[in-house]
């Protein structure tokens, strides 16, 4: 089918959908002024019930914690899948050199870049850990923090180059990080259940309001998410960067 035919199809669909969209936009509840019973109930109850001040984390790790479990496994599944797809034909070899494409010169990183990267690495790591730990008190959490941590490790590649990055970041460790964290999340659900409570029920003491470590079980889930996200994203970086290494043999 030609592009023209596709466009005709799109135009026909637009003609049908456009009035529907207009009616829909006019029929939507008033922006910013309609009732939000679910969110209000959580805003009202969660500080008292769970002693934490970040309501988004309360939803993520307690009220709708089961969604987050699915979400974490979605990430693990996607990373596992991407690793399988990327590693499929080339395998893995930690000792390989980066590929040199003729005509594209690979210049060694300048000293200033190396220095900045080495300085920024611990700072970024620290910031990532800070964001992870403040999941229940202030804006923050395992997802955001985990991504920051994984990106911080990427500074190694930027400053010290492929070989150093590759010698420090090992895929087995990352698998352990990812899979172990995912298993831990399921256990936060299963253990309360085996103790006679509901799956994912928050049975630990919930601590002091506004305290960094309030909402104990949530903290464990949060840490599990942080490890899984950090491990998963680092794994993705690793596999995509592996694509730049010199192919061995006939390939």
């Amino acid at each position, binding site marked *: 089918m030609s592009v023209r035919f596709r466009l005709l199809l799109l135009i026909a669909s637009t003609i049908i959908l456009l009035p*529907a969209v207009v*009616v829909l936009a006019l029929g939507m509840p008033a922006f910013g002024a309609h009732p939000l019973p*679910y969110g209000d109930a959580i805003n009202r109850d969660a500080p008292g019930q769970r002693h934490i001040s970040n309501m988004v984390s309360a939803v993520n790790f307690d009220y*709708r914690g089961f969604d987050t479990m*699915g979400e974490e496994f979605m990430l693990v599944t996607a990373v596992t*899948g991407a690793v399988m797809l990327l590693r499929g034909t080339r395998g893995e070899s930690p000792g390989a050199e980066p590929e040199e494409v003729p005509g594209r010169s690979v210049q060694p990183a300048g000293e200033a870049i190396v220095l900045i990267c080495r300085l920024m690495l611990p700072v970024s790591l620290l910031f990532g850990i800070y964001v992870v730990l403040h999941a229940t008190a202030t804006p923050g959490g395992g997802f955001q923090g985990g991504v920051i941590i994984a990106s911080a490790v990427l500074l190694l590649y930027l400053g010290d180059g492929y070989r150093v990055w590759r010698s420090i970041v090992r895929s087995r460790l990352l698998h352990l990080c990812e899979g172990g964290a995912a298993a831990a999340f399921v256990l936060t659900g299963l253990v309360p259940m085996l103790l006679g409570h*509901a799956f994912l029920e*928050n049975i630990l003491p919930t601590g002091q309001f506004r305290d960094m470590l309030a909402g104990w079980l949530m903290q464990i889930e949060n840490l599990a998410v942080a490890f899984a996200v950090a491990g998963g994203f680092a794994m993705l970086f690793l596999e995509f960067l592996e694509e730049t290494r010199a192919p061995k043999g006939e390939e």
Partner: protein
Amino acid sequence: MTAAMLPPLPVALPMLIAAVLLTLAHVWPRRVPDTIAALTALAVTSIGLLLLLRAAGGPITYWFGQWEPRDGVVLGISFQVDQVGAAMVTLIGILFTGSFVFAWGFFDEVHAVFHVLMLMFMAALSGFCLTHDLFNMFVWFEVMSVAAFALTAYRLEASALEAGLNFTVTNSLASFFMLAGIALIYSIGGTLDFSALAGVVGRSGGNPVILASFCLLLAGLLIKAAMVPFQLWLADAHALAPSPVCVIFSGAMVTLGLYGASKLAWQVFGSDPVIRAGAQHVMLAMGVASTIVGGVMCVTQRHVKRLLAFSTISHTGIMLIGCSIFTAQGQAGTVLYMLGHGLVKGALFMTAGILLATCGGIDEIGLRGLGRQIRPAGIAMAGGGLLLAGAPVGLMQHGTTLIETAAAAAGRGWVAGVMILGGALTGGAVLRVTGRIFLGLGALPGEEDRSPTEAEQEASDRPLWLMLTPCASLLALSLAAPSSVETFALRAITPFIGAPAASLQSPPAASSHDYLPWLTVMLALLIAAYDLSRQHLPGMLIAAADASFRPLHALLEAWHSGLVGDYVAWIVFGLALVAGCITWLAIV
């Protein structure tokens, strides 16, 4: 462990095992992941059966995190296990058990990665069946998609990669449509729980936002179910994914799209008359179109897995027709059909996998007569073909009977004709393949008949009996249906459709259309015989038949172009059709 702990287990158990397998992916000895995965699937099957027994007294509601509704506000997520959901979980468990046994030793080179992905897939499918929360449903929908995307492209051939890309793009759009639909209904109802949402729909009937929400959700789920005009992605993905994965795709994943759509239509939107009428029309039209398009495409294929893929479209179309009737009987028939079709189609994809492993190919013409050494596989395939065609035994037949009676009661007796056509075309195609490959019937292939597809082969060092056992077991299970299964389905369906038990109907008298199944089987045999004996038939007849059939075939083949742009354009068009139909009904 007590029985009250059962509902989360079909999800939590495979997830835990998957995580553990992943953690130590490098250290497992060769057969350990195979064993663990198969045992987990078996455990899910038994949990499904236990749930089926326990849900007999009424649906079991399980609140995660003990967040039961307070003051009428639903705070958490719940599973609601009715017998239909439990039966689907059992089907999923059975299919995965079969698939893991069938794939024994298939995926050695990727360590446990295949098993991790498959276990995640199983957890997501089970969660999708049991959940009673709209956003949670989306989460499982997405997890199952992500696992499926990665598994499709496992072979890393160019065509498999492209099929994977197109599959990912189209099905991601499906999940975005779904999410937009969820957001819209949340803006009106401020809740995500099915029962609470049903109350909202009941209170604010005819609201355009709710209509739009239903359109988007329906479109999203029907993309997953691959119904015309959303069906384009399916054939590529099914033809190129590894056979053990196809067993799940065809047997469970596609069907679950439909299961989700009918669940929402009954349990959330059921009280809105406009939506009900709209859904009836849309589902009927799409179901009929899918049955016919799938059947015609099926009978013209020579790549056996692609052929089976189109037969899945055709049979899912029949299920959609069953959903569109919107009566307890029609829905009960659909559920039986889903279960039976899952088992039969799973077995058929396994026979295709056996061909790939032992004969080193999947092209019907190229394999002519090569299947003589593996006759048991041929018997299995012939059995599957007869069941697809509608032989009067087994689960699928019970489903067909219920759907046909329900359609006749709703004044749409003509759909029986469409169902016969679909069954005859797909069954005929499978029987033709069996005849050509296992009996060496049909004309000798000439030079110009060489396979147009790239050479394919799947791990060939697996013993035949190990591949045949799960295949035969699935077929046996689909046959081992007592005649009381119709009564059972009608009883099980009442909580699913939220109907009071008083409206229970008795199962139809079996003698109403005794000749119908035989008619379909005869038609299927005729279609197979026609193709296999072309060289003996008078040339005039062949030329006339070809001339009348070829334009339709060329048009349909051009439609399935393999271009993602076309696929998405048709998806948008399909959404417009769904929305247009429902808007029209709302105005009139």
